[in-house]
């Protein structure tokens, strides 16, 4: 049963109807990346790739995660089709986790495509031989799990979860890594950056609006093991709490759902 739910949800999430916006986004990223790199040849290919991943790859990953994680249950509630799922003989935690895993897989697939596109734009076909690229594939998969799980939990707790996920992805995740002290530890983005082991830059990190960590100027001194543990833990704890919450909650289609 779990397998069927996972596969059918994955088929739905990876259908051309859903993917078209992301195909456009990836193409836009490729175009932007190419333009940007042609103006920044002096950076060197490794630093260029690292900067592009920081600026585009990880940011877009958070956006993709916000979209698909909120589609797991909140999308069904909004479409009112949740009633068909909740009156079938499926234990609710199985339903939730199966769909969540499909969402995480989708996020990871789009993330990996992004990494490969950025690598192709930057290194050309030889990028596939770079250890840094394959390391990033792993980091993106971990990031998909952490963002996917966390956003799913937000969507369990709040109506209009997509808005709060956006706030987290482009508010919290941008500001917190630039805050003084060890606050960067509380950002998933910091852990992903730390795991990538990308080269660092001497570029200035101007204040809270800064893009320092994205361009390799921020703190990256988190041990690899700690970052992996944090990302996995965020995913597992979020999924567990979401399953508990889902098991107890009532989902009645609202007439004013938007």
């Amino acid at each position: 049963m779990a397998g069927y739910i996972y596969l059918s949800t994955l088929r739905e999430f990876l259908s051309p109807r859903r993917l078209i916006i992301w195909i456009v986004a990836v193409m836009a990223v490729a175009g932007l990346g190419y333009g940007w790199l042609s103006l920044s040849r002096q950076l060197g290919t490794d630093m260029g790739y690292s900067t592009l991943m920081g600026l585009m790859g990880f940011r877009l990953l958070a956006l993709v995660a916000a979209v698909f994680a909120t589609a797991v249950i909140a999308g069904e509630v909004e479409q009112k089709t949740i009633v068909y799922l909740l009156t079938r003989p499926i234990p609710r935690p199985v339903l939730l986790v199966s769909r969540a895993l499909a969402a995480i897989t989708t996020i990871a697939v789009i993330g990996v495509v992004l990494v490969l596109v950025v690598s192709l734009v930057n290194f050309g076909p030889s990028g596939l031989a770079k250890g840094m690229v394959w390391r990033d594939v792993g980091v993106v998969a971990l990031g998909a799990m952490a963002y996917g799980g966390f956003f799913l939990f937000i969507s369990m707790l709040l109506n209009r979860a997509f808005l709060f996920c956006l706030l987290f992805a482009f508010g919290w995740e941008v500001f917190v890594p630039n805050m003084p002290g060890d606050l960067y530890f509380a950002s998933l983005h910091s852990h992903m950056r730390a795991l990538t082991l990308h080269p660092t830059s001497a570029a200035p990190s101007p204040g809270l609006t800064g893009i320092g960590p994205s361009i390799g100027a921020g703190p990256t001194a988190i041990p690899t093991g700690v970052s992996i543990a944090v990302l996995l833990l965020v995913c597992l704890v979020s999924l567990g709490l979401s399953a508990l919450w889902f098991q107890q909650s009532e989902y009645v289609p609202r007439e004013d759902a938007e």
Partner: protein
Amino acid sequence: MSSPIADLSYRTYDGPLNPPSARWWVIAKMHTLKAFRNRFYWLFVGLSGWYYLVILTVIFIMQMVSSNATEMVGTSGEAANELVRQIQFIDRFLWKNQYLHGFSYGQLTYLIIALLVGAGAVANDNRSNALLVYLSKPCTKLDYVVGKFFGVWIPIVTAMVVPSLFFFLYGMMSYRGQGFALYAPAFLSLVLAMAMSAALHTSILLGISSLMKQGRIAGIIYGALYMITNIFTVMIWAFWLQPLGQVRSNGATTNAILGAEVVDRNPLLQPAFYGSIDGLNIGLAKALLNVDGGNGFGMPPDPAATVPAPNGFMVFWLMAAICAFWLFVFWRRVRAVEVVG
């Protein structure tokens, strides 16, 4: 002539109708009140003013420290004088820059408010066939389009103006003697920039929403469009900062960079920086306020890292053209056709 329906008078009703000018307002008012009744709306309005709260707190604390240090001057001599000079940073304030910072730091929350208010504005009508209801009343397509526009625009512009208005009133009451009053007219420029910015959000959102049957999908598409264009601006900014990094890596200090004016950039970078939705909004605000921005929170300005204000005239007309395009899309999509499902 006999008819199986006894009373056909409703077909030729010639009684009083409300004046045509009021009908769009019925739709606009309904949307506006719906937004104002939403607690999340006010939560995000509060959040959008976070910069003002922070900067006022910083000023308050610095003034307290400054006042204590002033008392020390007599006993501690020149060192205390220097301390006072350093921390009386309020005197260095360019107040209208704070308007710009407040507006810039609020961009993300303005986006969220726009999504909250506008994503479902037409998509939900498409889904529920409410267009049939609207257009079966003595309500024209124009009434509907104008009503929806103002129904979304008013809550967004309110959300932008309210925190700034609080800051303005507080500043006028507390810092009038410290230069705030000099820049009071700049508040009107800020409101103008906000009005145009809200129009940009509203037009794009309504255009996208009219193409969809689910508010959530419309919101996702606008959110993605906003963020991807924002990534473009961030990339340009990173490129803008690159020369500083290179010079610094050669051993120069930031002050040396600034002093020597060694930064030589491609002239296309400056307009390209404003090539996103929030870039346009901030660019227009910079042009109208006649400031370049720079570091917020009372930190010293960093001209080499600051992207100068764009040509306001160009930005305004570009925004107007984008608004017109998306409103045209919206206009074309308003059709009284029943949508199954």
